[in-house]
C-alpha cells in the first residue's frame, strides 16, 4: 500500500460549507437550532397570553404580565438553580423542602431577635451548605442524584418539623419593607423588589453559564461526562458546585417565598421541586443534560404562571376541572412546542 498523495485542490474551506445535517441522527443541532426551543417557548407564551387577553377582560393589562413576575419570583430563582443541575444531567429534588426550611429558619431567627441582614446571610449560607453536602455525596461517593436529593428533600422537610410544626409570621420591618417595596414604572405599573431580584438572578446565571469556565464545564458534563473527564475538566468539583448553586438558589427562592408570604410554614412549597423541574423542561432544557438556557427556564415559569392566571380569571372551574385544565393547557403547550420544533427541523 502506498498512501495516495493528493494534489491539494484549492483551499479546503470552500469544499463543504457546513450545511445542517437534516438526518435525525441522535440529538444533533446546528447553531441557530440551539435557540429554537427557547424561541418556540417564547412565541407560544406570547400566543397564550394573547389568547388570555382576548378572552378575559382585564387580562391584557400590562400589570397582569408584571404580576406574573411578582407572583413567581421564587419559582424563577428555583428554576435557575435547577437549570444548572439539569444541565449536568443531574436533578435536585430537595429545593422545595429547602424553600420551606429557609422560611422556617428565617422566621424563627427573626422571632429570636436576630437582625434581618444576619438572617439573610445565614439562610443563604445554610442553603449553599446544604447543596454542597448533597453535591459532595453525589460526586465523591458516586450515588445517583435522584436518591441523594430525595433524601435531602426528606431531611430538610424533617428539619422544618423539628423547628416547629406550626407556622411563624414574619413581623420584621426590614423584611416587610422588602416584601411590600416595589419599583414604580411609568403608567402606574409596578414590580416588586422580589421580581427584580429574580430577573437579576436570571441575568447573573446566564452570565455564569455562558461566559465563565465553570459554566462551560457544566454544559460539557451534560454533553458527555466521560468525555469531560478525559478532557481534563474539573468534573467532580463542578458537579459539587452545581448542587451548591442549586442550594443557594433554593434558599434565595426560599427567602423570596418567605417575603411573598411573610411567614415560615413547615408545609410550604410542597412539591415545588416538580414545578421547578417542569418549568425548566418546558423551557427547552433536556433532562439528559447539556442542552438548555436559563432564559428558557424563566419562560417556562411564566408559562406555568400564565396557566394559573388563566384559570383564576376564568373562575368557573371546579377543583377537579382546575387540575384537568392545567394538564390540558400544559399538554397543548408542549405539543405545540414540539410541532414548532418539528417544523423547524
Amino acid at each position, binding site marked *: 500500500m502506498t498512501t495516495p498523495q493528493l494534489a491539494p485542490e484549492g483551499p479546503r474551506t470552500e469544499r463543504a460549507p457546513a450545511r445542517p445535517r437534516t438526518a435525525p441522527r441522535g440529538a444533533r443541532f446546528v447553531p441557530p437550532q440551539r435557540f429554537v426551543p427557547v424561541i418556540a417557548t417564547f412565541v407560544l407564551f406570547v400566543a397564550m397570553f394573547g389568547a388570555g387577553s382576548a378572552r378575559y377582560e382585564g387580562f391584557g393589562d400590562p400589570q397582569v404580565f408584571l404580576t406574573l413576575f411578582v407572583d413567581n419570583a421564587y419559582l424563577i430563582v428555583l428554576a435557575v438553580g435547577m437549570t444548572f443541575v439539569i444541565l449536568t444531567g443531574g436533578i435536585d429534588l430537595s429545593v422545595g423542602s429547602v424553600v420551606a426550611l429557609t422560611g422556617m429558619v428565617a422566621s424563627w431567627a427573626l422571632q429570636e431577635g436576630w437582625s434581618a441582614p444576619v438572617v439573610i446571610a445565614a439562610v443563604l449560607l445554610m442553603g449553599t451548605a446544604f447543596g454542597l453536602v448533597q453535591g459532595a455525596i453525589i460526586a465523591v461517593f*458516586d450515588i445517583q442524584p435522584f436518591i*441523594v436529593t430525595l433524601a435531602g428533600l426528606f431531611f430538610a422537610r*424533617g428539619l422544618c418539623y423539628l423547628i416547629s410544626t406550626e407556622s411563624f409570621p414574619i413581623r420584621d420591618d426590614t423584611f416587610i419593607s422588602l416584601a411590600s417595596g416595589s419599583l414604580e414604572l411609568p403608567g402606574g405599573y409596578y414590580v416588586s423588589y422580589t421580581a427584580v431580584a429574580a430577573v437579576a438572578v436570571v441575568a447573573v446565571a446566564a452570565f455564569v453559564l455562558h461566559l465563565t469556565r465553570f459554566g462551560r464545564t457544566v454544559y460539557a458534563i451534560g454533553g458527555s461526562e466521560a468525555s469531560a473527564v478525559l478532557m481534563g475538566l474539573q468534573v467532580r468539583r463542578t458537579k459539587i458546585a452545581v448542587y451548591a448553586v442549586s442550594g443557594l438558589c433554593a434558599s434565595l427562592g426560599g427567602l423570596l417565598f418567605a417575603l411573598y408570604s411573610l411567614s415560615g410554614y413547615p408545609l410550604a412549597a410542597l412539591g415545588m421541586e416538580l414545578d421547578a423541574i417542569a418549568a425548566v423542561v418546558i423551557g427547552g432544557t433536556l433532562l439528559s443534560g447539556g442542552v438548555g438556557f436559563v432564559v428558557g427556564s424563566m419562560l417556562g415559569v411564566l408559562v406555568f404562571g400564565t396557566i394559573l392566571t388563566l384559570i383564576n380569571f376564568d373562575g368557573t372551574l371546579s377543583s377537579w376541572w382546575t387540575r384537568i385544565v392545567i394538564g390540558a393547557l400544559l399538554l397543548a403547550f408542549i405539543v405545540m412546542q414540539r410541532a414548532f420544533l418539528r417544523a423547524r427541523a
Partner: protein
Amino acid sequence: MARAKGSPIAWAVLALLALLVGNVVVTPGFLSVRVQDGHLYGSVVDILRNGAPVMIVALGMTLVIATRGIDLSVGAVAAIAGSVACVSIAGAEDPTSAGAAVVAMTTALALCIVLGLWNGFLVSVLGIQPIIATLVLMTAGRGIAQLVTGGNITTVTNSAFRQLGAGYLLVPVAVLVVAAAILLVWGTTRRTALGTFVESVGINPEASRLAGVRSRTIVFTVYVFSAFCAGLAGLMIASNVSSADANSIGLYLEMDAILAVVIGGTSLAGGRYSLPGTVVGALLIQTLTTTVYTAGIPTQVTLVFKAVVVIAVCLLQSPRARAVLVRRRAPRPLVPEARASGDAPAPSAALPDPLDASGGDAGGPSSSSAHKVAQP
C-alpha cells in the same frame, strides 16, 4: 447494572435485614407471625401487604426507567383506577355482587391501559421528554379521578372487591398478586428477548433502531405495562379500605416507586435494570414506614429518620463510598491531585479500586463511565 454485579442488591438486602433487626430490638414481637381468623397476622405480613402497591408500581417503573424514561403519572393512574372501580361498583345493580366487582376491575384496568397508551404515544410518537409527558397525566389524572367520584369518598361494600387489597388466602391476596406479577415479568424478560430489547433501547436508542429493534413498540409496551401496574395498585389501595378517595390514592406513589427502583440499583440513566433489586427496594421503603409507626418515632422526626436511613443504605451500596470510607481509616493521606511539578505524587489511594467498575453512571446517557476512571 446490579444484575451484572449482584453486590449492590446484597447490600440493600443487608440494610433491610439491619432495619428488621433494629425493629426486633425496639419491638421484640416484631417478627412474630401467628394465624388469626385463618390467615397470617403480624408486622411482617403488614409490611408485605402494605408494600404490595409500591412493589407492583415499582415493577412497571423499572422497565420504564430501563428504557431511559420515567413515569410520574402512576399515582394519578392509581387514583383513576380506584375511583372508577368504586364508582362502578357503587353504581352497579347489585353493588355487593362479585360480578359487579369483576366488571369494575376490568373496566378500571382497561382504562389504565388506555392511559398507558396515551403516555406511550406522547413519549414515543411525539417524542416529548418522558418526565413532562407523564407530568400531564399526573396533573390532570387526579382531577379526572375526582371528576369520577365527584370529589367525594366513594365507599363500597363488596366482599369480592375487598379480597384484592384486604383479603387473605392464608397470605394476603395482594401479596399473591404481586408475586405473580413479579414472576410473570421476570419470566417474560428472561425467557423472551423483551428484557434485552428494553435494555438495548435504554442504553443506545439509535443503535437499537439501526439494528431493527422496534423501539417504538417497546416504549409503548413499557408505559402501558406501567399504567397497568399502577391500576392494579390503585385497585389494591381502594380495596384495602373499601373506598376510593381520589385525592389520596397513590399520593406520592411515583416518588416511592422511583426510589424503590433506584435503591434497587437501577440507574435512572437507563439501560441495565434489576428486578430483584426493585423488590428489595420496595420492601425497604415499606419496612421503613412500618418501622416509623411501630417504633413510635415522633412525627416530627419521621422524615429526618427516613432521610438518614436512605442515605445510609446508598452509602453502603456505593462501591466507591465503601472504598473511600475504608481508605479513610488507613494512615495514608488523601491527596486529591498530582500537580504539574510531580513532586507530590498522590498515593494510589486517591484512585478508586477495581471494585469501582460499575461507576454509578448517573451523569446522563452518554456517560459511559469506563472502568477505573479516576476523576480529577
